[in-house]
């Protein structure tokens, strides 16, 4: 569905992405993981037309979109859920959702999509009259995703949906992303939390210094020794291993 071919892009004179190629097929979840500053958000912004491409091509199906302005790209069926959500805080949940359908011309069908979101995210139906800024972090993240879904995108771009969420809420959000896919959505998921992202994704790409370093099925990346070392906190045991290493550092530095 979406194909990036040898894309280089960046801000001003300094490129961030170097000939990155990536593909998202219909009805799959693709995870893009990597360190801070590796260029993950830049890649999303490049796809959305927010960052200028210096070379390479981006195809949505067979249509080239790398030179299109952002509103055109949104109309072509892409929707981005930005990092840190960017909701309309004082407006109600329902108003936020309706704004997500702002670019749509089929006014009559918007109500149907709205009901669909309320079915997928029952908590939002409960809070539909509440101001977005009064929701908890996890609920806000759900609202941001639901708002993006309101434009009935062909492809959903999620930027760090787990950011700042409690562990329990991260599990819920990831389960929700999977249920979106099961309902027919296609998702490109950018995550710092590589374990959670690969846990839900079908395939994954690892971005290092603006270049795609590794790619493959999510299961294979979870097994990959280099990926484990760099992004999953080392060999099997995962999160427990990091905790243990932090504890041993504590003994070394603080002596307790």
């Amino acid at each position, binding site marked *: 569905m979406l194909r990036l071919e040898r894309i280089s892009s960046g801000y001003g004179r300094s490129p961030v992405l170097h000939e990155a190629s990536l593909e998202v097929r219909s009805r799959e979840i693709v995870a893009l993981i990597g360190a*801070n500053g590796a260029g993950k958000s830049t890649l999303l912004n490049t796809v959305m037309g927010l960052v200028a491409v210096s070379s390479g091509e981006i195809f949505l199906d067979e249509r080239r979109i790398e030179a299109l302005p952002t509103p055109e790209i949104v109309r072509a069926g892409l929707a981005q859920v930005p990092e840190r959500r960017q909701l309309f805080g004082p407006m109600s949940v329902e108003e936020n959702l309706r704004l997500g359908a702002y670019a749509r011309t089929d006014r009559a069908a918007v109500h149907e999509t709205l009901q669909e979101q309320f079915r997928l995210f029952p908590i939002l139906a409960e809070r539909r009259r509440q101001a977005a800024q009064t929701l908890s972090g996890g609920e806000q993240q759900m609202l941001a995703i639901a708002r993006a879904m309101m434009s009935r995108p062909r492809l959903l771009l999620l930027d760090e949906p787990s950011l700042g969420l*409690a562990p329990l809420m991260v599990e819920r959000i990831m389960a929700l992303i999977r249920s979106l896919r099961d309902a027919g959505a296609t998702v490109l998921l950018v995550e710092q939390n590589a374990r959670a992202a690969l846990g839900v994704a079908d395939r994954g790409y690892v971005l290092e210094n603006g270049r795609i370093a590794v790619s493959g099925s999510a299961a294979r990346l979870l097994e990959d020794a280099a990926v484990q070392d760099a*992004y999953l906190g080392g060999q099997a045991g995962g999160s427990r291993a990091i905790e*243990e290493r932090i*504890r041993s550092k504590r003994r070394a*530095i603080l002596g307790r």
Partner: protein
Amino acid sequence: MKLRIGLAVFVACVVLYPLALPGQYPLGIGIITGALAAGTVGFVLLLGYAHQLALGQAGFCMVGGYASAILCVNHHWDPLAALLAGALVAMATAWAIAAPILKLRGFVLAMASLALHLILIVVALELPFTGGALGTYGVPKFALFGLPLGSDLAFYYVVWLIVLAFVAAGLAIDRSRVGRALKALAASETAALSAGIDITRYKLQMFVVSAGMASVCGSLAVHYLRAMDPNVFGFAFSLNFITAVIVGGLMSVWGGVVGAAIVTGLREILRGLSLPLWEGVIMGVLTVVVLIAFRRGVAGFISHLYDRLASREAPRASLGDPDGAALSRSGRPAARLEVRGASRSFGALRAVSEVSFAVEPGAIAALIGPNGAGKTTLFNLIGGYQPLDAGSIALDGARIDALLPNRIAALGVGRTFQNLQLFDNMTVLENVMCGTHRHFQAERVNRAKTAAALAFVGLRGAERLHLGELSFGHQRLVEVARALALEPRLLLMDEPASGLNDSETERLAELILRVAALGVTVLLVEHDMRLVMGLADQVVVMHHGEKIAEGAPDAVRRNREVIDAYLGSEHVAA
């Protein structure tokens, strides 16, 4: 270098102007420009530095103008003494009204200050000694120490000497810790408070200083016009004042001078074309054009051009590893924090409800709980950003819950924020230097301490970078460095690992341990359980505003209530 060139060009322009354009008329324009510049320099300090949208500054010009006119004409004062008296009255007035008026923000402040200007115009019309609508006439020529200035040329030089003094004062403020504090509060008041900066005080100072300068502007203009009435500094003049600083640029006091010259010069040219009706239209169009073309004003544009021409290699970051030896244990002992019965409600929502716990000196404690449990609110209570409804918070046994945030910071409570609160109008170095604000020591010492803090967190080499050139993770480290520059005894960190990947999280863990080893008590809010369970001596769990558990990491991890409310299945102890 840039500063010297600026001053040289300024002096050259002032000296050469009367030589290049001799005659009474151009000289008059030069004097009026100078008088206006004296006021606009102060206005830049208020609007550009302190970000206070008080648009009624022409009211203070009226104070100066009437002081000079009335004292010189009716009471035969020396003009210089009258000018100083006017400035003092203006500054005293500003100081007196600052408390209520600077509480207002943005457009409300703009309207309130314009309303004050309107009141002054009406008062001037009605008071018995102002001359009413006719005004006061026969103001003498300016004099210095009793010696009348024989020629307008002499007055011209005196006026511009005063402008030079004001510019020098403005530049000195810009380069001092006060200037840095002003830039900081313009970018983020919350972060400025966390660095121990008393924002109310600096807003007040700039309001008073700019009122004084506006008053001098009024006095000088009146000595040139030789008359004063309520229309001299009316709303049209206010508009000129505002246009001048916007066209000139709010980034530095030079913008005030450049803007005053452009506005006065342009008005005279338009008068020469004898199209008085079009004057307002053309001025308006010009303002819009300049705003679109040079967003930082003409002076900002020139400065930017200079930087581009003079710029050598763009600074590149070659970030080093954290240098644990860069900072050493401070003499002051770590603080003990005690929270007792802390409560805080927002309407019907009990955000924090009777929470009590203590963190022993030097310990690392973690505050965890679901999103919306009240953790950040509790942080805000400890830092003094919000008042307690009930309960108390004490540092080493002394209550701090009634203190302002900058006072609490000055006691040695550092803080980092969940959504970064950095000063995006400054370099990395300046950001961290703000942390040294409370120390009142030589800039050289501050610089050395800043460099050490940057090296400690692993940002050696990033000093000259702008924040936008750093990744999110590195920006977090800048915040930590700024908090360390405060030399804290207690450090509050709000979700420091959010947005970091695993290897970065491990490096952060090591950094927090090294901070604790410096003799700093650490309290963190964090969702990354590996970090919390690995680092903390003590974990406090909140849910719906209440404390539901407290204890060592392993005990908390096995607590059924904590698992159900927060941890979920994945983190249950193996």
